């Protein structure tokens, strides 16, 4: 059996300019932040980022490495708006394909199922279709015949295109070296669809254990990501920080607040990024420890 365990550096080395990168999690919850931080220090650019957006999107956009974002929102949950994202948008610095949260789900599902689109009512009548004219509509093909529903006879529906990804990255509680992974937090979100939609599929985890031993760490039903869905696994303790990754840790609200405060002032941001984001993941975690000790 292949051993898929690798390093953040090896994952980051596979990223190339111009790629479309899907990032799992939701808002400020269970984001693969260690990998995001590694991308910040890489030399890739012109990325398209596909995410249920949180601080991952704010940080990547601020770094200037992102050409386009596909999302339905960017939020920090306990703090509604991300200042880095707002500033980039208000400066016209980044393209946005803004889709309904449900359409986003269908776009990932379509890619994972290798069909060109999936159908929804969501988006009809809204600015989603005005601002993203590349999303097309379709006439209901079941206007007659045994499956016709008269109420939808003349209906036009949204054909949400497959959101195909070059690379997807998700963060979990525990993975094994074969590439199976366990999510112990309250919501799996759409992580398995990000992986399903991608050519290269990365999992980062608080802990990586020997293949076949995941059920020693929790219910087998929580192993929602299996090895047919993954290519590489890396151990990144604290890798979702400062987003929540229950039950390992909740959101670091104090640190998130410090991030937001710094993000609003260029000088404060320069100091914040110098202190926390200039080095590798180990130095980030050490800097956070030191910061916590000061609080």
């Amino acid at each position, binding site marked *: 059996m292949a051993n898929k365990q690798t390093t953040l550096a090896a994952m980051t080395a596979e990223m190339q300019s111009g790629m479309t990168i899907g990032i799992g999690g939701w808002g400020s919850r269970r984001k693969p932040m260690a990998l995001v931080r590694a991308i910040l220090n890489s030399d890739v650019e012109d990325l398209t980022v596909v995410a249920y957006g949180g601080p991952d999107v704010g940080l990547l956009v601020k770094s200037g490495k992102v050409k386009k974002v596909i999302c339905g929102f960017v939020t920090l949950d306990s703090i509604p708006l991300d200042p880095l994202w707002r500033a980039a948008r208000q400066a016209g610095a980044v393209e946005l394909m803004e889709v309904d949260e449900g359409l986003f789900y269908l776009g990932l599902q379509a890619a994972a199922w290798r069909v060109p689109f999936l159908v929804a009512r969501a988006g009809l009548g809204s600015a989603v279709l005005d601002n993203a004219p590349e999303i097309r509509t379709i006439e209901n093909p079941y206007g007659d015949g045994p499956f016709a529903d008269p109420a939808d006879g003349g*209906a036009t529906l949204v054909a949400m295109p497959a959101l195909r990804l070059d690379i997807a990255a998700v963060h979990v509680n525990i993975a094994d070296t074969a590439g199976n992974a366990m999510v112990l937090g309250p919501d799996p979100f759409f992580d398995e669809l990000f992986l399903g939609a991608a050519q290269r599929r990365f999992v980062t985890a608080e802990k990586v254990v020997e293949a076949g031993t995941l059920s020693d760490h929790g219910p087998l039903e929580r192993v929602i990501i299996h090895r047919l869905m993954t290519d590489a696994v890396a151990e990144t303790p604290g890798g979702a920080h400062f987003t929540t990754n229950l039950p390992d840790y909740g959101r670091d609200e104090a640190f998130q607040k410090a991030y937001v405060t710094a993000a609003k002032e260029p000088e404060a941001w320069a100091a914040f990024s110098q202190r926390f984001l200039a080095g590798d993941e180990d130095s980030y975690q050490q800097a956070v420890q030191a910061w916590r000790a000061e609080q």
Partner: protein
Amino acid sequence: MSEITRADVCTLACAEAWRDAGEIMVSPFGSVPALGARLAKSTFSPDLVLTDGEAALVHGVSTLAAKPTELTREAYVPYKAIFAVVWSGRRHIMMMASQVDRFGNQNISAIGPHDHPKAQLVGVRGAPGNSVNHPTSYWVPNHSTTTFVESVDVVCGVGNDRAAQAGPGATRFHDLRRVVSNLGVFDFATLDGSMRVVSAHPGVGIDEIIAATGFSLGGLDEAGVTPEPDDAQMALIEQLDPRGARLKEIPA
């Protein structure tokens, strides 16, 4: 019993949105709608289903001050299950609106042009899908000509005019119910589906509503006064919001 505040009136007005709703999911945004949903569930709509805001349905009625560990959870509903509920139509959401217009289009995405907004907000979120799949209402705690506008900058929740233009795929389950603001209650029961005043909250003049609204409202001559909670409802409101979260949203 303390004096009835504007927040209490708004709470009952939100609760009324879910009267006789039966067994559906209620998704209230904002403290006042969250309290209104609990009031409705405690009184005239006992079958309403509320979530814990994470991934579970909550059994019984919890207070706004309840900690997550104090809730009794009755079912598991991660986001994927929520979308199944949305698309099945068994839900009535009350969203907030940074802008709402004459035909009930709502904006929570951005103020100004979409490619270069003056103010980036949270994003369309699920509003486009919610509004064409199940009953939708809005809560606007700061009624003014900047929130009640002639037409919104980014249509997130779909209004009656835009749904009609999009055709039967959009209108089939589109069901815009009411808008509750800090000044009054509004609906869309007009010939052209435009907004109408149902009632002004006690102490609010129709002139005040007209001055705070950026478009012409229907129903001005027939508008009533929003009912105040009775003693039993007031007791429940205070019990369900022991820390006065509603008063932070709508100061007395």
